[in-house]
């Protein structure tokens, strides 16, 4: 019986966050993917409030919400693997947490809106909103990285994990929708960061293949369009 279990699969960026954290700490765990469209007994029992993945189960006790899970992992295995994920000083921790709030509250919904947009206008608006958010993160990166490779400086930190989980989805959407979302011209620092993040051993271990994410995105788009067409008829 594995002491550490994780319900979910890396195609979900929120699950990927927790997998990156576990990988950084070199913690062994059992991955329990859910079937698409079905929620397991274990999931419903472990996360009765939201019934969502990811759920980390440690010594049979569930921890829910990806940001909470990553902080938990950092606290339980402080020195393991690549070391601390949260920054050492309180002010930087506050900045990483502030920007995580921003990513979850504003940036991610605008990314979803791009995928869901039904008209060209709606898409253009959503794209502009998303790019505006990335431009803020570009500024934040310059300040927080202090010339190093990551938001955490010379090692992968909390915000790297919380934002980095979306990289493969951003790329998939760029490919399928023929858009540039993470513009190299206006976001050179973030562009560089993506390269560093993707190159990190712990991230490479768990990052899903781009092809798989592209296929998955195409599939859910098709499902959504079919549902809309069925509803219209």
């Amino acid at each position, binding site marked *: 019986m594995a002491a550490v279990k994780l319900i979910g699969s890396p195609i979900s960026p929120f699950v990927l966050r927790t997998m990156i954290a576990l990988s950084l700490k070199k913690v062994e765990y059992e991955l329990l993917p859910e079937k698409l469209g079905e929620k397991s007994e274990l999931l419903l029992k472990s996360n009765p*409030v939201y019934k969502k993945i990811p759920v980390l189960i*440690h010594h049979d006790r569930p921890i829910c919400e990806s940001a*909470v*899970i990553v902080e*938990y992992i950092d606290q339980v295995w402080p020195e393991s693997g690549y070391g601390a994920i949260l920054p050492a000083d309180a002010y930087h921790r*506050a900045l990483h947490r*502030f920007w995580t*709030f*921003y990513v979850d509250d504003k940036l991610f919904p605008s990314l979803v809106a791009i995928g869901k947009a039904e008209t060209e206008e709606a898409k253009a608006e959503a794209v502009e909103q998303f790019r505006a958010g990335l431009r803020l993160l570009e500024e934040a990166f310059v300040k927080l990285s202090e010339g190093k490779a990551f938001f955490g400086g010379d090692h992968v930190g909390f915000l790297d994990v919380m934002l980095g989980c979306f990289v493969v989805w951003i790329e998939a959407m760029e490919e399928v929708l023929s858009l540039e979302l993470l513009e190299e011209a206006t976001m050179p620092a973030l562009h560089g960061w993506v390269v560093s993040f993707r190159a990190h051993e712990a991230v490479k271990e768990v990052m899903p293949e781009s092809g798989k994410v592209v296929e998955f995105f195409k599939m859910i788009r098709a499902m959504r369009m079919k549902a809309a067409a069925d509803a219209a008829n």
Partner: protein
Amino acid sequence: MPQTASLHLTNRLHIHIVLESESERERERGARMAEAVVLLDVWVSPFGQRCRIALAEKGVAYEYKEEDLANKSPLLLQANPVHKKIPVLIHDGKPVCESLVIVQYIDEVWSDGAPILPADPYARAQARFWGDFVDKKIYDCGIRLWKLKGEAHQEAKKEFIEILKVLEAELGDRKYFGGDAFGYVDIALVPFFAWFYTYETCGGFSVEAEAPKLVAWGKRCMERESVSQTLYDPLKVYEFVCSLKKKYGIE
């Protein structure tokens, strides 16, 4: 006057002067320390109140600056350029934004006071989870109770009562959400205790009937000075919401 008596008097005077200037220095030091911590806030904001309660629990001296949201100060715009919202804690010139981020920051910086988040990683994770739940659910659903009408209002009422019941179940028979110790989840939720009257009046239900343990918990929290000195009278909050409704042209 005998020699010894005058000497005695002089010594007392000397000590008195020394003590006076020491307390003067203490006052100055206290004032300087308070200047080092500034809170940009609005009186009725439950999010701002979380910060005020946390600062009070830790005994931190700070300068409170009331913002006029219709006319935001240059300091606010500079301290929170992303959202331009209160609360903002400015510590030694460095701004911290997002109320729960601020509460965690206060807990970590003034670590010699009673802890707000528990030390145990699992208990801490539970506290973070429930603080996040309160953050995601109460305010947004609450607004719908006084802004919306008809079906949408009924939906909001159902949802809000469900939220209360979930919190009630989580609290159980404990003194506080943190157990015996007042903590993070209590701080995240208790400002909304002063909003219960508004929610139930606009919503058409009774919080006491739906979640009696939660009401009892709120009253227990109000026994703490940090809470009673921070929360406003529920009627005042209701008056405030009524004035907002008028402003937005809601019946």
